[in-house]
């Protein structure tokens, strides 16, 4: 029974012959409901903004700080930026971490204190930091929280068994006896991608050279260098066709982001960066999706985020993109999946200039692999660039695309659409 019929029946039971009056009341109620709804939609601004972002580390090693101190450092900066007291104002904390990289199981139990989150609403998302942003975004959208915090970090310099942890991620019966530390998965995917999209060694060397050089202008880069395409092509193979210089080396660091509802955001910062859309996806645990030439997870996550944000033609919508480049070929693969590359297979190669500038920050190739924090690093770089452009009143950078991938052997990723308007 629909509501209208229900009300009518109730009115008849209550008023009997005076139903005429009841009908009038109903019409009137429908009208006022609609009116209130429309005014409400105008007044109710349910957007979500990033109002503060802080970071620490961004170094190949951070021996003088524990991971908790790295988090405290980044969190303090994020809270200071938007004048938030975590002990009172924050209604949801989301941490993104993974037991084996931490060296402690049930590692979420060690998360609250250094974030100011003791005895408060905290949960761990065992995923990339950008998935944590999606969780916090939903907490705010649903009204569970009006201010939420997302944290993720890397202390890879403390992980003495890095290749064993990667090996542990492989399927134990079919894959572990064969695939060494998992790096062959990336190398095989790279070969198949190059084959299907007719991408050359030089195309990939260009990504390396571009990102390493871009990193020279970024204070946070640990591995930036003036590397030419020719130099990149001479780097030794780790697993042919994957060369050492095409892999993001490990780095330590922490990023903490503060998200807020539109109502709160405007009083917390003069420069809110709006999350216009967000999406996430996992392709499949199957081997063929781990080494597929198409990044289906990125394609599907983008579809979800673009739908929420109303992005119809990504190539013209975005001013720049921060895309996962943990391995150099992944930048090209992800750009294609996100619909921001002009990859014309029939032409046989990649164009020199992409329609949307990618990884002007230097990407992971310059900043390093920060495991679960990598998505938040891409987010940090996008937020800083959007804010700087606004400060300089430059019109070029108002809309950004941010994408993360969870690394080998996964086919999981997330996408966020950011804007300052």
């Amino acid at each position, binding site marked *: 029974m629909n509501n209208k019929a229900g009300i009518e029946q109730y009115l008849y039971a209550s008023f009997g012959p005076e139903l005429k009056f009841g009908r009038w009341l109903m019409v009137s109620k429908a009208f006022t409901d609609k009116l209130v709804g429309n005014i409400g939609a105008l007044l109710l601004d349910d957007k979500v903004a990033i109002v503060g972002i802080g970071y620490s580390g961004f170094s190949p090693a951070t021996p003088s700080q524990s991971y908790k101190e790295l988090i405290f450092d980044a969190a303090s900066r994020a809270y200071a930026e938007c004048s938030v007291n975590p002990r009172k104002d924050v209604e949801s904390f989301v941490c993104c971490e993974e037991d084996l990289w931490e060296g402690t199981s049930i590692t979420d139990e060690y998360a609250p204190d250094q974030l100011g989150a003791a005895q408060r609403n905290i949960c761990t998302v065992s995923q990339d930091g950008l998935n944590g942003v999606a969780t916090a975004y939903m907490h705010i959208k649903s009204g569970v929280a009006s201010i939420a915090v997302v944290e993720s970090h890397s202390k890879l310099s403390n992980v003495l068994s890095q290749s064993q942890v990667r090996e542990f991620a492989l399927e134990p019966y*079919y894959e572990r006896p064969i695939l060494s530390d998992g790096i062959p998965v990336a190398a095989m995917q790279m*070969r198949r991608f190059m084959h299907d999209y007719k991408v050359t060694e030089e195309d990939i060397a260009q990504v390396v050279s571009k990102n390493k050089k871009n990193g020279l202008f970024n204070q946070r880069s640990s591995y930036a260098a003036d590397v030419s395409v020719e130099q990149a092509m001479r780097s030794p193979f780790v697993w042919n066709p994957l060369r050492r210089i095409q892999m993001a080396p490990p780095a330590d660091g922490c990023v903490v982001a503060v998200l807020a509802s539109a109502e709160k955001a405007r009083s917390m910062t003069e420069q809110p960066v709006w999350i216009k859309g967000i999406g996430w996806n996992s392709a499949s645990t199957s081997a*063929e999706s781990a080494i597929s030439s198409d990044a289906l997870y990125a394609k599907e996550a983008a579809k979800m985020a673009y739908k929420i944000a109303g992005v119809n033609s990504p190539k013209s919508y975005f001013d720049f993109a921060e895309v996962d480049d943990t391995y150099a070929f992944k930048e090209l693969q992800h750009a294609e999946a996100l619909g921001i590359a002009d990859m014309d297979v029939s032409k046989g190669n990649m164009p020199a200039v992409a329609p949307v500038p990618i990884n002007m920050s230097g990407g992971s190739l310059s900043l390093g692999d920060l495991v679960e924090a990598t998505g938040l690093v891409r987010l940090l770089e996008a937020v800083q660039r959007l804010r700087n452009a606004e400060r300089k009143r430059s019109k070029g950078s108002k809309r950004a695309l941010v994408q993360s991938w969870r690394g080998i052997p996964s086919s999981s990723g997330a996408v966020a659409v950011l804007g300052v308007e």
Partner: protein
Amino acid sequence: MEYNPLFDGTYHLRPWVDSLPLEYKYSLGVAGKTFSEGLRRGKILASKCSRCNESRIPPSIYCVGCFGYSDGYVQVSETGTLYSFASRGDLVVAAVEFKGVKGLLFHRLVVSDRNKLEIGAPVRPVFVQEAIRKGDITDIDHFELAV
């Protein structure tokens, strides 16, 4: 004088190092056991979905495509094709696909002539002697080019 770590050049940089041995058993399950028994008999088995007929390796009792129940098993063709490969020194690791079967099998590839190594090349499994097979993936010693 009261101890101040800031005046100590090295002590606070000294980490605590620890390690724990971890050991697990991994239950192969119904589909895994069937695959394992296939290996002992020198066969590579794929599962077959009872709803959409999709075959898949490694086998599973659920269909990845339609979530149907897969209770049938089929032997894959004698030769597969090279989906992709990676190499380090003499070691070549390959992803092999089989006609009409979704999924891939990873294994070592032994080739005498590297020039013949290319995506799409036909390959076949070489099993170890039946007497020493254990039902492990290494019952296949390696794959070789079938040209």
